[in-house]
């Protein structure tokens, strides 16, 4: 066994051979990590969702490059006037992929929809416990308290009855966790005694068929010619798993891959200057903020919270922390989202006025506070520690002594959710482009409980009524009005220092055409081509 290794080592060390077999239209994407498996229902990471996107479809989907919902496996849908019943009319003649284990005998139909959702909530479903049986997003999006029943009306019609009207439900159905798997494949695997393979060798209806996953190395897909929508332009798609961003960039420069994810902010200028590369960018659907815990003194006083907002120089932070790739935030939702209230005027950077406000609140000499900084880099905050240091210096100017505190990430989240901090940095990236997906989890009263995601622990009835009512209305225009009012309330009460919406970058070879960046931060190659 050693002989070929020795021989080839010798070849390797002596010859310095470059390999470059040309293949027809294969795009290599340098991705940042390994997928946990091939089932988006049981995972929560963007990396795993990206790896599943070529394979699976949902009933509805986000139009490429936008957060608008468009038909996918459902051709159309009806919503009753009370907003509680959604009837989906399914697309006919949608073909399933095939693999060594499975050749489909029928196209996609309502049984697959019932199976895929049933798997997530029905404990009697034989697949409920397969691959760990933990459907986090299903729970996180509050499906158990929202969905009353899901029924098959006929082979191509499925009815979802909700317990209460919920306008964001349609956008929820476009999210990754709502992927549709093949019931026929599931039955075949069950019969063969290998149910777990459903999440390892996926069968879907998407533009690319899964070929093989070599752990921690590559995921290979090939174009699915039976796809129901516009056919993919690439013959094959390869995800080359490359964890280090410096190495991803090196591979991109050497044309070992043509697209890469998540560049180091410090590398952006040299990428822009490289004549072989293009750098796409898009404002991210995210927010980085400093939460002011209103249940703790002195942040129970709105004057103090406003003073904090006026004391922090956002522009300086955007230059130093985001390398300029960020936009100062004045609302919780980003400006690209519908319902954004552009009439709101941000707090000016005014340390003198901030000092006056503190004096009026009874703190003429300032006070001491903690200032928590996350230990990790996130899309909405590339360097929380640095941000905290800049804020600390700004606050010192108005007499506020801030002590920077940090914990290991899991611990940080837990303690902050429990409300142990006075002020703390965190942020959010949207899931489905609906304002509800920002306001309810980050600032709603339900999330202000200990352990909830409302880190300011701020519960304002006026605000909460507005966002809860907005969730029940069918008209987007009506909803937008309520969200705009809610933003006025939030600005007045200032429970957060809203720092910035970051810009997300995607470096790629100039040979790549047709790539559209998604505001949701996912990576799709449906209509990408190579010149």
């Amino acid at each position, binding site marked *: *066994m*050693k002989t*070929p*290794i*020795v021989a*080839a*080592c010798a*070849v*390797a*060390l002596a*010859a*310095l*051979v*470059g*390999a*470059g*077999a*040309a293949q027809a239209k294969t795009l290599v994407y340098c991705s940042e990590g*390994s997928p*946990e*498996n091939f089932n988006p229902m049981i995972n929560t*990471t963007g990396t795993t969702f990206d790896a599943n996107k070529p394979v699976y479809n949902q009933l509805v989907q986000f139009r490429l490059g936008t957060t608008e919902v468009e038909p996918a496996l459902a051709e159309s849908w009806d919503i009753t006037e009370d907003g509680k019943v959604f009837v989906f009319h399914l697309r006919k003649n949608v073909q399933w992929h095939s693999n060594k284990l499975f050749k489909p005998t029928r196209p996609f139909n309502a049984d697959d929809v019932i199976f895929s959702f049933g798997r997530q909530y029905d404990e009697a479903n034989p697949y409920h416990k397969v*691959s*760990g049986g*933990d459907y986090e997003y299903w729970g996180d999006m509050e499906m158990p308290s929202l969905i009353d029943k899901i029924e098959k009306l006929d082979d191509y019609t499925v009815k979802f009855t909700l317990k209460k009207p919920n306008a964001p439900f349609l956008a929820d159905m476009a999210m990754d966790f709502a992927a549709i798997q093949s019931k026929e494949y599931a039955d075949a695997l069950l019969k063969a005694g290998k149910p*777990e393979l459903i*999440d390892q060798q996926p069968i879907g209806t998407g533009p690319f068929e899964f*070929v*093989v996953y*070599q*752990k*921690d*190395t*590559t995921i290979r897909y090939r174009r699915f010619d039976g796809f129901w929508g516009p056919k993919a332009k690439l013959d094959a798609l*390869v995800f*080359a*798993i490359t*964890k*280090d961003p410096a*190495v991803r960039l*090196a*591979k991109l*420069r*050497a044309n*070992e*891959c043509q697209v890469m994810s998540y560049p180091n902010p410090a590398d952006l200028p040299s990428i822009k200057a490289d004549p072989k590369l293009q750098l796409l960018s898009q404002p991210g659907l995210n927010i980085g903020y400093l939460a002011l815990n209103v249940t703790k003194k002195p942040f129970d006083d709105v004057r103090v919270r406003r003073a904090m907002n006026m004391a922090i120089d956002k522009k300086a932070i955007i230059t130093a922390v985001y390398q300029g790739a960020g936009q100062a935030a004045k609302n919780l939702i980003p400006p690209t989202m519908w319902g954004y209230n552009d009439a709101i005027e941000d707090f000016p950077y005014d340390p003198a006025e901030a000092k006056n406000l503190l004096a009026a609140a009874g703190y003429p000499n300032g006070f001491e506070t903690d200032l928590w900084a996350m230990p990790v880099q996130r899309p909405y905050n590339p360097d929380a520690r640095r941000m905290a240091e800049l804020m600390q210096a700004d606050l010192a100017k108005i007499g506020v002594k801030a002590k920077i505190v940090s*914990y*290991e990430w*899991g*611990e940080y*989240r*837990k303690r902050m959710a429990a409300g142990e901090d006075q002020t703390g940095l965190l*942020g*959010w*990236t949207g899931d489905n482009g609906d304002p509800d997906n920002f306001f309810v*989890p980050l600032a709603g009263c339900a999330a202000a409980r*200990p*352990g*909830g*995601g409302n880190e300011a622990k701020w519960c304002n009835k006026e605000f909460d009524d507005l966002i809860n009512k907005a969730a029940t209305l069918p008209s987007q225009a009506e909803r937008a009005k309520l969200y705009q009012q809610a933003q006025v309330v939030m600005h007045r009460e200032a429970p957060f220092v809203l720092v910035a919406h970051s810009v997300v970058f995607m470096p790629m070879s100039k040979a790549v055409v047709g790539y559209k960046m998604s505001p949701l931060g996912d990576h799709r190659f449906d209509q990408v081509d190579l010149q």
Partner: protein
Amino acid sequence: MLRFLLRRVTLILPTFVGVTLLSFLLIHLVPGDPIEVRTGERGITPERLAVMRHAMGLDRPLWQQFLGYESQVLHGDLGTSIITQQPVWHEFTALFPATIELSVCAILFAIAVGVPLGVIAAVRRGSAFDYGLMGLSVTGASMPIFWWGLMMILVFSVALGWTPVSGRISDAFYVEPWSGFMLIDAWFSDDRGAVASAASHLILPTIVLGTIPLATIARMTRSSMLEVLGEDYIRTARAKGLGSLRVVVVHALRNALIPVVTVIGLQVGTLLGGAILTETIFSWPGIGHWLVESIQRRDYPVLQGGTLLVASLVMLVNLGVDLAYGVLNPRIRR
């Protein structure tokens, strides 16, 4: 000999328990558990956290968890990854050949370059070559692998374009995994280009991983050679009128290699440790890469099982070296 073997094997048992205990304790001492690490900004309700911790058995006292784990391991079950839901043993066997392939190439490289360099340095003791080599070997042994790897990539892959940046084979090739050793699998595939591609992908990681063992081997060979070259029988050999090459290679080197063999055996631990960093830099899908990931994800079963397997391997190799040494040198059997 049998007694010696028994004594050495008995010593392995406490080491084995020690390793399981240590790997278990260390990962449990790190704050954050697998569930909390995964929740991110969304958070998790205390009720749901309790349910999930119970389902994973994380709510039991630590000593119970340890005894449960120990008994599971003794029954030959290393558990299932919390993240991928795959048996730890399957993941290990799928990834281990990549690490072996890299380590074998690295050690062969280190021997092939280190031994001749050490010999030349010893023969030309005090020369500029000797000083230069010894200086370089100190640098080599103390080189941070991460920096060294990135430097090699920047120079040879990005600036000069001679070698691929990372991975085991160009993405243009798909080689059906049969042995798990990319070179062998590529060799038996019909595509000749695949072998060249796999070989070219090995160059930089081999050099980076082989640098520290190379420096150690070169120094060891030099000092061992110096000792042997001063022996009476070498003088006798020279006096008999043997050619200087023959004296050095046949008479001196053969004897000087005994301690070098031991050092090479001891390098296995260094190699596996270095492989963790090298694999991370070069996206080399071996166990180093896998273990680092399992720490970040607090994937307890993978981390414990993986550490145990790697430690067992190091123990086995050391045992093998000890036994071989026992055969070569009967004095230490007592």
